[in-house]
């Protein structure tokens, strides 16, 4: 009875029993007196053993309570340990709120009912609650190393050492988001996700690297002045990654020769590319219409022609084509800024960058587009929109041809486009106009999806947010941001407190399409072990490296 633990022999320690709750609001459990309330952390993973099902649940809240107010008015003295012990569990007790996320039948009589399912029932009174064990986590989240390469470990649950894996196929199928306050390690999370996709070959990536963090070396934010460098994607995956640079000088200065230097000619910019820049350039809505009027006459050469004009000629020109002079003058003035960008050229020498990118993507080579010193918002928005729009066009064509011919060799590779500062591309006004809004809404129809990285998810259009399949969220403080991240994902009641209580570094909440249930993880370390797991050879000792190269050669070319 009292004091005798009921062990089932299968699982982890018993921590309490379910006392009340409902399906909608979650369950409450009374913590056993021997357990320390401080061990219960928000986001901890526990298992409730019902009669017919096991319920995998997350701790969402804890509270202290007493059955008699007198106890609280006259708390026992600090020295009176006996009285405190006697009171704990009887007059004073701890209640932990749990939210069941998945249920699994105990004996799978019906093969259809095997495996974790959404929660439709609740356990009875006094059901045992136990800590989750390794097999529980593996049963739900899978283990890295299966033949399909489906599971990629992104970290460990709180207070446990087992892997938590995301389903890379499901991750690549939809658009995904990585959110968190500044400094919470979003770049590391993004790098992890990209490494998973590249290593298991589930999608080819086009990364718009605004801050030069993904391609080559990046600085690790450690305390004090001792910052070290971590490997970028190019160093980890070598030939599978190509670096395109808008600022080749800067790339070279950081010790890397870009695989391709990117230049954009004026003829490549269409009016649709100017529209998303309205906010940034503070353009009048009529400005875009004026641009269309120029385009109507000059077609591809509209921008070149417009920028070639000077001063009063602009008004003259406006009258010629029937545009409003004032707005065309404003447009002209603002578009003049484009001339100052070193990557804007009047004539392309090396060929069209978009065609080149497409070639690489077709071969399965991932492209990182570095911006070097060109970190102004304008250049980022402009270049990202131009390239993405045309890539998307090509992909639409490819997909339609595939749907027509149905031949497997025509199937386009799944493409994932990574953009940072996503709220600039996807805020409610821009989302209707930019190509990224279109991509986000189309889902998997044309084999293109987004990986958005942002610290202000509340600024992103709701409709786009609801299309985000998997969300990896680091610490967020702002109530609106938390609300935004939880939009459109089922079963997230009670996750608010979990989100707000994350550590500011190396902790994230993963939820959505690629994981069966929301889970708090301590992110996988981005260190030497990770490098070797990803197949990077640099750090291996000589002998192992030779062996590995031999093995790879044989795999590629056959024996002899």
């Amino acid at each position, binding site marked *: 009875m009292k004091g005798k633990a009921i062990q089932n022999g299968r699982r982890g320690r018993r921590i309490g029993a379910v006392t009340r709750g409902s399906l909608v609001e979650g369950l409450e459990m009374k913590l056993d007196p021997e357990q320390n309330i401080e061990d219960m952390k928000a986001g901890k993973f526990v298992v409730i053993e019902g009669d017919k099902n096991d319920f995998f649940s997350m701790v969402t809240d804890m509270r202290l309570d007493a059955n008699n107010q007198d106890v609280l008015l006259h708390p026992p003295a600090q020295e009176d340990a006996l*009285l405190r012990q006697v009171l704990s569990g009887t007059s004073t007790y701890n209640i932990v709120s749990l939210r069941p996320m998945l249920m699994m039948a105990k004996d799978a009589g019906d093969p259809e009912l095997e495996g974790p399912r959404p929660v439709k029932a609740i356990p009875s009174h006094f059901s045992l609650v136990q800590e989750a064990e390794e097999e529980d986590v593996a049963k739900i989240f899978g283990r890295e190393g299966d033949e399909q390469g489906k599971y990629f470990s992104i970290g460990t649950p709180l207070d446990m050492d087992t892997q938590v894996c995301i389903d890379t196929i499901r991750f690549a199928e939809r658009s995904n988001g990585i959110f968190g306050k500044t400094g919470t390690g979003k770049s590391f999370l993004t790098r992890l996700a990209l490494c998973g996709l590249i290593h298991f070959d589930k999608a080819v990536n086009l990364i718009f690297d605004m801050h030069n963090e993904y391609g080559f070396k990046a600085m690790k934010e450690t305390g004090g002045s001792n910052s070290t460098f971590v490997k970028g994607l190019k160093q980890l995956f070598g030939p599978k990654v190509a670096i395109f640079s808008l600022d080749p000088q800067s790339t070279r200065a950081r010790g890397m020769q870009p695989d391709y230097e990117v230049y954009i000619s004026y003829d490549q910019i269409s009016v649709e590319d100017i529209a998303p820049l309205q906010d940034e350039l503070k353009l009048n809505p009529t400005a875009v219409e004026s641009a269309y009027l120029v385009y109507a006459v000059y077609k591809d050469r509209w921008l070149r022609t417009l920028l070639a004009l000077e001063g009063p000629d602009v008004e003259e020109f406006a009258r010629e084509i029937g545009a409003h002079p004032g707005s065309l003058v404003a447009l002209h003035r603002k578009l003049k800024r484009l001339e100052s960008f070193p990557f804007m050229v009047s004539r392309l020498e090396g060929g069209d960058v978009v065609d080149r990118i497409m070639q690489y993507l077709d071969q399965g080579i991932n492209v990182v587009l570095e911006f070097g010193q060109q970190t102004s918002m304008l250049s980022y928005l402009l270049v990202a929109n131009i390239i993405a729009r045309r890539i998307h066009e090509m992909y639409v064509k490819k997909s339609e041809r595939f749907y027509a011919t149905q031949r497997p060799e025509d199937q386009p590779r799944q493409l994932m486009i990574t953009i940072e500062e996503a709220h600039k591309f996807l805020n409610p006004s821009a989302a209707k106009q930019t190509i990224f809004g279109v991509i986000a809404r189309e889902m998997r129809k044309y084999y293109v999806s987004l990986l958005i990285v942002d610290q202000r998810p509340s600024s992103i259009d709701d409709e786009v947010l609801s299309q985000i399949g998997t969300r990896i969220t680091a610490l967020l403080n702002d109530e609106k941001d938390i609300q935004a991240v939880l939009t459109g994902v089922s079963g997230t009641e009670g996750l608010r407190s979990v989100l707000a209580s994350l550590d500011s570094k190396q902790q994230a909440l993963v939820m959505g399409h690629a994981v069966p249930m929301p889970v708090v993880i301590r992110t996988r370390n981005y260190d030497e072990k990770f490098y070797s797991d990803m197949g990077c050879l640099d750090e291996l000792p000589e002998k192992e490296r030779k062996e590995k190269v031999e093995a790879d050669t044989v795999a590629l070319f056959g024996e002899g």
Partner: protein
Amino acid sequence: MNSIEEQRGASPLSRFMAEEALGNGNGSHGKNGDYLGEVIESSTTEFVAESCELHGAPSFGRFVRVVSEVPIIGIVFNVFTQSIEPNRRPTAYGKTEEELRLEQPQIFELLRTEFQALVIGYVDDTGPVQTLPPQPARIHSFVYPCDDDEVRAFTRTDDYLRSILNTAKIPTDELVIATMRHTLRAHGRAAPYLVRMGKELARLLGDDYDRLSSIIRRVAY
């Protein structure tokens, strides 16, 4: 009535020790060995026994066993010494007990010590049972003290505390304290047992925090 507090002068344990030690002042309990008393009144809920020796009754709060077909377990809640005849009451002499025994030994023949015990259970084939027995103790049965093993066997569960607390006309708090001290000693003063008893009390006295803390404080001395 002896209460635990009055015994606190010497070590409180010395009183318990004295009774079990053989050949002590309180030893030689009569013709049949170690029995402490003989039942002279009996009912389902309590019994009265006359102790063999004057002033030789078991301690307040002590577990006692009535030997019969179905042994009955009780807890001593009242010990009283009075004159045999109701009409003749002792008077004061102004002399010490030793002097009186030398000079007026006959007055001690006119006194007797009796003790009342609360029936809290019995022993059947399956072991100790913490409910009232089917039949009360028989008159003239002998009453023996329970030794440590018997106390431990009987107090495996703590339901008897409820019986004590629910009885009227007895000093419940004091009795609970005395009984708990006895059982604690029988369990070797193990702290986990003390905590366990305390928690059971907390469940029973949950609404009355003052009473609970008062009892816990005094049990643990």
